[in-house]
C-alpha cells in the first residue's frame, strides 16, 4: 500500500496504477483501480477526478426520520425508495463505505457524476436491513433503486455501466451522465 496526496493507493490489487485522485476523503484501497479495469472492458475512456465527491443527505448512516416503529415495514421502505430518484442501501456511507460491493456502487454513481443520491447504511439499522431485503425479495446488500424501482446490486449496476444502460436510465431521471461529457471532450481531441 502506498500513500499519495493523503489517499491510500493500493497498486498491488489489480496491477493498474492509481493516478492522482482529487476525490476527497474516502480511502480507495485499489477499488477505483478495479473500477477502471471494469470500465476498460466497456471500452470507454475514463477521466478521473472530474467531479467532486458528494455526500448524500442521509449519508452519515442516520436512520431516516419519521419512521415511527416498523422502519423495516413495507410501507416504510416504500417511502424511502420513492423519496428520491436515486436511492442506495449500502453498508457504511458514501464517505466511508464498509463493503467493497457497496463502495463499487458509490464509485460507479460518482463516475457518472450523480452528485445527489440518498444512501442508507443498513449496518446501523437491522430492521431496515431485513426490511429492504423483504421488500425487493433480494438477499444481499447493496441495493440500488432508480425512480423507486429496484434495479439490482453491484454486479448489475456494473454491467449497466459497462453496456451503456446506466447512462440511459439516468437520462430518464433527468440526470446527464458525466461520462457523456467525458466522451465528448475525448471526441474533440
Amino acid at each position: 500500500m502506498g500513500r499519495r496526496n493523503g489517499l491510500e493507493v493500493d497498486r498491488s490489487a489489480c496491477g493498474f496504477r492509481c493516478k492522482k485522485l482529487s476525490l476527497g476523503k474516502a480511502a480507495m484501497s485499489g477499488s477505483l483501480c478495479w473500477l477502471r479495469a471494469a470500465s476498460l472492458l466497456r471500452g470507454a475512456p475514463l477521466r478521473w477526478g472530474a467531479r467532486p465527491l458528494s455526500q448524500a443527505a442521509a449519508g452519515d448512516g442516520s436512520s431516516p426520520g419519521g419512521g415511527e416503529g416498523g422502519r423495516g415495514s413495507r410501507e416504510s421502505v416504500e417511502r424511502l425508495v420513492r423519496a428520491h430518484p436515486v436511492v442506495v442501501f449500502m453498508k457504511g456511507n458514501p464517505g466511508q463505505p464498509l463493503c467493497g460491493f457497496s463502495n463499487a456502487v458509490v464509485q460507479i454513481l460518482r463516475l457518472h457524476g450523480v452528485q445527489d443520491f440518498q444512501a442508507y447504511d443498513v449496518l446501523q439499522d437491522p430492521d431496515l436491513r431485513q426490511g429492504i431485503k423483504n421488500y425487493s425479495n433480494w438477499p444481499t446488500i447493496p441495493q440500488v433503486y432508480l425512480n423507486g424501482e429496484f434495479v439490482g446490486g453491484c454486479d448489475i449496476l456494473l454491467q449497466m455501466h459497462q453496456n451503456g444502460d446506466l447512462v440511459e436510465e439516468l437520462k430518464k431521471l433527468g440526470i446527464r451522465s458525466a461520462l457523456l461529457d467525458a466522451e465528448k471532450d475525448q471526441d474533440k481531441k
Partner: protein
Amino acid sequence: ARGPLISMGKPVESTIRAKLLQALQPVHLEVHNKSSMHAVPRGSETHFKVVIASQCFAGLPLLQRHRLVNEILQAELAGPVHALSIQAKTPQQWEENQSVSQSPGCLGGSRHDPHMATKLGSQG
C-alpha cells in the same frame, strides 16, 4: 445435495455447483469461493462468485437472470452464503465475450457485521 459431488472441506461450493448444474444445465459454469478476499476466517465459505452461461437466461433481463440464480441458491443465501456475485450470460453472449469482471476489494465490512457470526456459525 449429497453424494459424490460433495468434496471434503467445500460443502457449500459443491452444493452451489450441483444446484446450478441441475437447474440451469449451463454450457459454462465457474464457482469461485472468494471468502479469502474478505474479513472472514480462513477456510470460510461465505463469499462466492458465480460465472454461468445458460440458455435459460435467453430473453431474460439481467435482474431476472440474477433472481433465477438467487432462487436456485435460496437455501445457501439464507444460510452460510453472505455474498454472491453473479455473471449470467447466454451461451451466445459467453461465446462473444468471455471476459469476467474482477471482484471489488474488501473494505472489512464483515468485521463490523453482526450477521456474520450467524453465517460463520452455520458452516459447522
